[in-house]
């Protein structure tokens, strides 16, 4: 049993089930990120944890205490909203202490808690201002202060950074991460930004269409996505998917496709499992991330399974640290991530190195990874 348990939780509006059988257990001190495109049900799930939406079936428990039907204020949670939801008619100080006041905490205690939080977030000079007079980043801090001051069991964040500009977003991201490391609190964090998900979390739940597609550490999600959706949603640029035909040859399995000169290409699958071996002659998708598809010099030196293919470069996009190179393999558009000084030019045929240790296979019908 975890610190926060979501057991078989579903949510329906009338006949329509919008969240299906969610099962997640979060340990104390974990940073769980719910990520997915809009409408995937991540905010609904967060609101169910907060008690802002009813749970249709299933259970949610915090610290072993059943939360179904418990009022939000009795769950000992705090929430930071996308719009910050600062009370416009109250000063920053009043905003921060409102929750304590509602819980009947005495004034001296409230003031002390407020002072501590204000110091932690460096917003002492803002305490007498109204939210309307604050910048976006300041509002964000106040919203976090309001959550922190309650010292809750679980922090809930609902896309807290999406209203900030790019630079501020990165700064605040770091700050949230620091807070988590320093305070060791349990956090459930909703975002549609996969970079936020990767950088902040200790575990990620990727959601789509009301289902949890995959639950795992950032590394698991990134390296071994459970299905095509997770593979394409996480990572930028997203994973290349090349249609191939599997060919079993003794103990080895080859993924056959063609380059853009209509030459046959055979890529040996790294350490094929029994399942893979049973797929002789089947058409599948080969997934390979851009950083595993490079120029030969830039290929991972530790990898023992680097395969080279000659193919025509269509577009090059120098991005400073790297150069992204587009090409067409087996009819699929692919992006390779090459060193910035790689010798490539549009229209020229170059060598592309496949790090087959990082390649994964998907069944195109079920979209699931072939493990």
């Amino acid at each position, binding site marked *: 049993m975890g610190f926060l348990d979501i057991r078989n939780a579903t949510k329906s509006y009338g006949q329509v089930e919008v969240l299906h059988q969610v099962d997640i257990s979060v340990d104390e001190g974990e940073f769980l990120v719910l990520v997915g495109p809009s409408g995937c049900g991540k905010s609904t799930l967060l609101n169910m944890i907060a008690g802002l939406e009813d749970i249709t079936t299933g259970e949610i428990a915090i610290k072993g205490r059943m939360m179904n039907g418990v*009022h939000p204020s009795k769950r000992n949670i705090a929430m930071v909203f996308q719009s910050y939801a600062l009370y416009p008619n109250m000063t920053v100080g009043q905003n921060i202490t409102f929750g304590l006041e509602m819980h009947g905490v005495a004034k001296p205690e409230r003031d002390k*808690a407020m002072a501590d939080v204000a110091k932690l977030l460096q917003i002492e000079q803002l305490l007498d201002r109204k939210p309307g007079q604050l910048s976006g980043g300041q509002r964000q801090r106040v919203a976090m202060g309001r959550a922190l001051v309650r010292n809750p069991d679980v922090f809930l964040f609902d896309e807290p950074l999406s209203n900030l500009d790019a630079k501020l977003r990165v700064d605040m991201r770091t700050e949230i991460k620091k807070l988590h490391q320093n305070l060791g609190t349990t956090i459930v964090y909703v975002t549609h930004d996969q970079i936020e998900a990767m950088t902040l979390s200790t575990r990620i739940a990727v959601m789509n269409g009301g289902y949890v597609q995959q639950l795992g550490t950032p590394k698991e999600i990134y390296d071994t996505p459970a299905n095509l959706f997770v593979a394409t949603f996480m990572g930028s640029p997203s994973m290349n998917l090349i249609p191939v035909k599997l060919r079993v040859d003794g103990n080895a399995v080859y993924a056959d496709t063609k380059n853009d000169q209509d030459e046959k290409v055979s890529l040996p699958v790294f350490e094929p499992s029994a399942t893979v071996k049973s797929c002789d002659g089947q058409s599948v998708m080969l997934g390979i991330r851009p950083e595993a598809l490079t120029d030969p010099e830039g290929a991972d030196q530790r990898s023992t399974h680097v395969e080279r293919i000659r193919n025509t470069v269509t577009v090059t996009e120098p991005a400073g640290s790297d150069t992204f190179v587009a090409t067409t393999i087996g009819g699929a558009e692919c992006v390779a991530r090459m060193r910035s000084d790689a010798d490539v030019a549009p229209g020229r045929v170059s060598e592309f190195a496949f790090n087959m240790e990082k390649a994964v296979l998907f069944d195109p019908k079920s979209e699931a990874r072939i493990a």
Partner: protein
Amino acid sequence: MAVTDPAVGASAPDFRTRLQHWIPKIVLSPSLAMIFVFVYGFIAFTVYLSFTDSRMLPSFGWVGWENYSKLWRLSHWEISLINMAIFAGLYIVVCTAIGLMLAIFLDQKIRGEGVLRPLYLYPMALSFIVTGTAWKWFLDPGIGLENVMHTWGWTSFSFDWIKNRDFAIYTVVLAAVWQTSGFVMAMFLAGLRGIDNEILKAAQMDGASNWNLYRRIIIPQLRPAFLSAFVILAHLAIKTFDLVIALTGGGPGRATELPATFMYSYTFTRNQMGIGAASAVIMLMTIAAIMIPYLYAELREKK
């Protein structure tokens, strides 16, 4: 930890949550109860009365459709319906047009807007018990505008609509427009002030003339203001009663009778409450025919 409540651990909702669940409905219930009794209950009562032989006071002898058949035989009723169509149509269109025009003009950074706005708005504050008399005088050719023009030397000027059977209804429209167009102006002004200026700038970059800017960009964005204005105006048009009584008393002849004056006169001064109730039912059905589709569209959209 600020507050925890270790005692509560059951799976049933706690008392406070259940209470919170019921409070909104409890808060709403007195208003709903009042509306159901005083509006829908009374409507039901009126429908019932329309099938009875009530004359001076409600009585409960069932007469079936007799009141309705009598009602449709009355030329008086026919006149009041035709008048309603003319009045409501013109009133709503003219008020909207004037209100929109004034709002657009006032929105051009006009000096003295602060003075003009209350001037346009104040008629809404006055009751027609006496402004009706002022209007009556003003429209009266013998003492009002026509007379003034004549004394100023413009002897061919003629403005005798209020005395003319065919035009009197337009004077009712005029006075009604006077009363509410300022209010409509305020609604449109509010709508205009809420439009994002960046859109306007973008449209100007695209080379839109002022005329096109309003026609193509701004006015379409005022849709909510148009709808609100329509509801308010339609409701005022249907309830128009004092104005007619004060301005023309339904005359000349019966030229400015409206359904509301018809209903009042049959119910209260002619002791034919059954026919009055029947006319009220027809009025309500007309209102419902106009309003229910509107409400349906509006409320469904917002959901």
